[in-house]
Structures are given as structure tokens and as C-alpha cells.
């Protein structure tokens, strides 16, 4: 079952990639055409046009790389910040662990949205800002996961064995601990990537997404709200694209989980 899901995931993602790679003919996603506002889907405009007469298909395509960039960068930020905090806390233990755990706890006590809002507001509107905000807001959960998995690997006997050869702690971490934490990281990364797309869309909805005119899928979806009754296609296509991608990433994540540790599936 999970393998089928994973297959669906890859297929959906592949379909999305094909769509992204194919350039829509002749439309600049930013080109305003005031003679073609709010046109429903047609042969010229596959997904219709928005209130400025921009071709929605081109915009959805153009939004893909940015959406993925934001989501990818956010994931990287979360993995880097949360990962290094978690790894240090889990591997060193002791007071360092206590300190880092306290900081991570404080950060969690600050709701992710508030943190993202504040970071976004401070960094100013940019796709990078969104990514950093989303990444930092998700960092505590990565820190937790990594801390516990590093902790469990650290207690493994092959680590003791390496220590008996006089191997340095850094080498032990790099040679033995880190490679064995790749799986939980991969699973967390998939979850995070899916979450990042959704959080970005929520931030867009609250007016704090990646700034126009370039748009992410979340941004397109959030903007479509104004026309939900007269031009439902404006929300439908970005919404379906976004959800399909999140779905795909979630399936991949689930597949990874089932594949690597059938015991722990949360």
C-alpha cells in the first residue's frame, strides 16, 4: 500500500515537473493585458486570466519554481538551524542539552505564526524573508526530532566501539552518528517541505507571503479569494496545483517513513 502511495507521489511530482518544464507559449506571467481581464479558461488561456488580464496558466507555471524555492529554502533553514541545535543537544547532552532544549522550548512557546509574522515584518517583504520565517518557525520541531535520533544513535554500541579505537568525537559524529540520522531527517524534511508550502500559503492569505508581482501558488490562491464567486478558476487551478504538490510530497514522506522505519510513523 505505501509503495503505491509513494508511486502516486512520484507520479504527481513528475507531472508537476513536466508542467513546469514546459513553457507556456507566448505569455509573460507579468504582462498586464487590460483588454482581457478575468477571462474564463479557454484555448488561448488554458487557466483563464486574472483581473489584470495576466495569463493564469503562465502564472501558475512561473509560480512553481518560486513556490518550490521558498519551500526548499525554508526546509533548508529549518533543517540547518533546527538540525544543528538538535544534533549538538543530542550528541553533547548535559548542560548544553538543557540549555538548547530550554531555548527550543521558549521558541515553541511563541506560536509559529507569531514568530513568522514578526520575522516577516522585520525582514521586509521578500521571498527569502518568507522562507527564513517559515524555516525558523519550523526549526524547533526539527531540533526535537534530531535531538532524539542523535541521542539514540549515540547510545549505540558501534559508537562505543569506535571510541575504543581512540577515534575523535568529531569523526565519530561524522562517520557514525550523522549517516544514521539521515533517514529521520529525510522523513522530517518531506513533512517540512509539505508544511512549508502550506504555511507560505497561509502567510500569503494573511498578506505576508512572497511579495507580488511574482507569485507563489499560495499567493495566487490567496489573491483569488476576491473573485471566488465570479472567477472561481482563479483559485481552482492554483489550489489544485498547490494541493497536488503538497499531497505528492506527503505521499513521498509517507513512503519514506514506511520504507525506513515501519515502527515509527508519526
Amino acid at each position, binding site marked *: 500500500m505505501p509503495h503505491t502511495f509513494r508511486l502516486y507521489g512520484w507520479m504527481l511530482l513528475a507531472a508537476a515537473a513536466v508542467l513546469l518544464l514546459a513553457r507556456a507559449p507566448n505569455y509573460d506571467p*507579468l*504582462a*498586464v493585458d*487590460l483588454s482581457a*481581464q*478575468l477571462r474564463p479558461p479557454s484555448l488561448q488561456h488554458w487557466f483563464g486570466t486574472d*483581473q*489584470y*488580464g495576466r495569463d493564469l496558466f503562465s502564472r501558475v507555471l512561473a509560480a512553481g519554481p518560486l513556490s518550490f524555492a521558498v519551500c526548499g529554502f525554508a526546509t533548508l533553514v529549518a533543517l540547518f538551524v533546527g538540525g544543528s541545535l538538535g544534533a549538538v543537544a543530542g550528541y553533547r547532552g548535559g548542560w548544553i542539552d538543557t540549555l538548547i532544549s530550554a531555548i527550543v522550548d521558549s521558541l515553541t512557546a511563541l506560536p509559529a505564526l507569531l514568530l513568522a509574522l514578526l520575522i516577516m*515584518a522585520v525582514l*521586509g*517583504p521578500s521571498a527569502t524573508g518568507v522562507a527564513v520565517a517559515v524555516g525558523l518557525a519550523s526549526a524547533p520541531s526539527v531540533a526535537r526530532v534530531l535531538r532524539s535520533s542523535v541521542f539514540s544513535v549515540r547510545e549505540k554500541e558501534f559508537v562505543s566501539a569506535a571510541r575504543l579505537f581512540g577515534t575523535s568525537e568529531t569523526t565519530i559524529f561524522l562517520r557514525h552518528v550523522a549517516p544514521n540520522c539521515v533517514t529521520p531527517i529525510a522523513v522530517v524534511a518531506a513533512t517540512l517541505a509539505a508544511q512549508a508550502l502550506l504555511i507560505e500559503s497561509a502567510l500569503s492569505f494573511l*498578506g*505576508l507571503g512572497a*511579495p*507580488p*508581482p511574482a507569485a507563489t501558488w499560495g499567493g495566487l490562491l490567496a489573491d483569488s*479569494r*476576491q*473573485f*471566488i*464567486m*465570479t*472567477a472561481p478558476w482563479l483559485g481552482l487551478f492554483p489550489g489544485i496545483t498547490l494541493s497536488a504538490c503538497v499531497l505528492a510530497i506527503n505521499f513521498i514522506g509517507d513512503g519514506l517513513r514506511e520504507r525506513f522505519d515501519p515502527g515509527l510513523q508519526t
Partner: protein
Amino acid sequence: MNLASRLAVIAVLLAAVAGCSRAVGTSPPPDEIRIAIPSDIRGTNPGVDRDAITDAVLAHVVEGLVAYDENFHVAPMLADTYEVSSDGTRYTFHLRTGIKFQNGARVTSREVKWSWERLLDPKTRFLCRDWYDGTHGIKISAIDTPDSLTVVFHLANPNYLLLEQMANFQCLGAVLHPDSVNASGHWIKPIGTGPYEIAQWRRGQFVLLKRFDGYRPRPEPRSGYAGAKQALAKYIRWDVIPDAAAARAALYSGQIDIVTGLQPSDLGELASEPSIRILQSPSIEWLALLLNTDDPILKNKLVREAIAHAIDYRALAKGATFGRARANPSVISRASPYHDEVDEQGYTYDPEASRRLLREADYRGEPILLQANKRYPAMFDNAIIVQSMLRKVGLNVRLEVLEWATQLANVPARRFQLMSFGFSGRPYPLFAFQSVLGVMHENPWMQWQNGEALKLAERASVLPEAANRSKLFDDMHRLMLADVPMINLYGATVIDAVSDRISGYDAWSAAKPRLWGVDIRAPSGRPQ
């Protein structure tokens, strides 16, 4: 409990929820009008705790001596008649007889004097005290009450625009009963003379107004903020709905009767609802593009002119408003009686000229940031379209979408290059000019500094004949076009939508909803 019985319980609960929902009435009570406002009122202290929405709500509760009518002429309100001395320093108001405050007390000159002296007292922190303290010309030096129904305002210098200023709805010069404040001068609540009084204010949710039964409407027909203000509905509830789409949804589902300040882009959606009536009027609010004349690139007038010629104003106005508005190069609204053919003069759309000017200016594609925000859709739409047009002539314009608070803070800080901006309506041309024209180091809000124009402005307020002022305003418009400190794009459109439950409502260019003279029809066959 086994799974089957659990499922049964769930089914019953679901059915119960569905059943309940049928029984819940979502429409307002039969004697209450509900109108959506995008944000809560700031307070109940007129002119002190204020913004446009607070002004609009409190305009139902308090009144001034004079008021603007539908076409922005000054008309009497609490004053029955008034005279201006020929030297322009003495204004005499004769109050209407037999009108009462909402606490039952009669309105006399004593309360008028008290109200105005309170406003002029710096301790009150009346936000528009600068209108009357000489900053902009008018300085009220004394207020006399020769008898209980006569009030005389003395000015330090001649000025013929006191009435226009007093009638201004931006900062209500409200006449209040002294019991509105306590012994130590702290604000309690407004005891005014308007057709409604505040019954309940649940912060963040709604303001409920109740009909003041002792109100005596003026004999003239309803017109703008002037004329008869007949309170027909017993209650008016101003529901705070920050989200425009939610407000529309509420209108369609019958929870709200009136939604104001709609966007042209909503019209298609509104038209598809048979039970909704759409009311439109050209607004005195206007949209503009600000050009920072201190900016290294934009201080070159050639670049500014190039920008001015690169914009297709007709297409912009049409595209941004779905054909609802026409381009207006002037700060004077088409709704204003002062708008004349000179105000129609603007920049021509001439991309070739624009490119030429850019070459002359030696512009080499330096990036120019255009600031906009998403809070006000019109500003955002204009920015998108203007950017697209400017790029066509080779201007490397990038869009910078900021949060409204940030963008607003950038205006007085002059932290911008181009900015898509909007101005709230000024009922009188000079006030419109004065919202952008001034000495920048004295007032950082000012976008345009021109000695000649400042002199013209000064002359306009000491010119007794209204007709002669019009020529001065024309000259000011020409000077503005020549300086290109900002480019006026078009006047906004007031779009209000009303459910068919309501009769007698009309939109007004001032973009102020007026709920007097508005009634609730007998219930039709709508689902309750």
C-alpha cells in the same frame, strides 16, 4: 460501547447539528439595519479618537453648525442661518429653535461655545486643531454668545473658508452637551444632537445605534450630510468585518444589509446576486502616483516627465476599475462643483516622448522601486498596471509590496522612489491641494513644495468671492502638472451594495454611508 453504536451516536449528532442550523435565524431583526465596517471605531470622542470610519459612524450621533450637501456646498445644520462679515473675520450663527440634545437638554449657544472652546483647547487633543489655530490661515480668536441662540466666531485674520472647514466631515466640529465629559474633563460618551445615539459598543464586534426619538429633522430634503435626517430604522448596527470577502459573503447570506467601499472588481460578483442592489457614485477620493523629488534618479524632472508620459491614463483607469472610473489628472474630484475643463488637462500618453525624455535624462536602466500595498486593492492594482506600462518604455521599475503601516511610515520619511498612493476625499479644492502642497521641512507629509502655488493657496482663502477662487485652483493645477511631484491617476468610485430588504439608501461621493432616511421593507419571502 461498540463501534456500531458509536457510529450511530455520531450520525445522531450530525443530524442534530444539521437540524439546529435550520432553526438558527441568520438575518437581522426586523427593526435593525446592519452595515459592515472594515474596522472598529477608534472611540466615541468626535475629532479626537477618529478615522474615516469613526467619523462616518459618529456623523449619525453628532452634528455641527453647518454641513456639506450632496454636491459639496456648505449648508446649515444646527445653525438656521449664518452671516459672514464683509472683512471676513466675524461669523455669526443663528441656531435652530427647539432642538434638543440626546439627554433632553435644549441646544443653546452656551453648548456651542463650550464645544468649540473644548476643541480648541490643546488638552482636548483635537486632531484638527491646526485647522483653526492659524497654521493654515484660519485662527479663531474668540467665541461670543450674544444670546442663547446666537454664536459669533471671531477670526484673528480675514478668511472666507471657515464654513467650508467647519463643515468638513474629516474632523467633525461636533456640538456636544457638556455632560459628555465628567467634571475633570474626561470623556464619557457623546451627547449630541444627531438622529441616533450609541446604544452599545462591543469592541471589535459592533457598534449599535438606537434611534433618538427627540430628533427634529430639518425641513429641506436630505442632501449629503445636510437636510432632513429622518431616523426610520430603530436600530443600526455597524458590524466590524475586517475582511472584504467575508463582508460580501455576509451580504449574500442576508446577515448584513449594507456593505460599503466595495471594489470595482467586485461588481461582477455583486451583479450575479439578484437580491442585491448596487449603488455607485464618483468619489472625491483619488488615486495617485507619488514621485520622490529628493531621489537621485527622480529629482531629474526629465525622468519624472518621462514617467508621466509613459502611462496610458485612460487604459489604466478603465483597467483598474473595470471601466467604472475616468482618468482625472487633477486633485479636484469630478464630483466637485469646482472641477472644470482646466482640470481635465493632464499628461498625454506618449511612449515615444517618454523614451526620448529618458534618453535626454541619460537614464541607463537604474532600478526604480515602486511601493504599494495589498491592504488597499486600488493602490495595488495601479502599481501592477503602472509597472507594466513603465517597463514598456524602458524604465526598470520593480514592485515593492509593503505592509500598509510600513508604506505609510515611508511617506513622511520620504523613504520611497515611486509610490502608489491614495488620498481620502477633501470636500473643498483648497483642502485637497493642502493635503499635498506645503513646506516639506515643516510638514513631512507634503509632497509638493512650490512658492507660487503656496501664494495662490493663501490668496484663495482670503478671496471673498467663491467664483474667483476657481481660477486660482486652475493655476495651481497647471503648476502641479509642470512640477510633476505626483501624478494624479483617477478618482475612485464609491460602490455600495444593499440588500433588497433596505430602501432609501444611496451612495455619496464623500464615501460616507448615511443611514437616515433609510428604511426596512416589510419582510418578503426570503428564507429566515
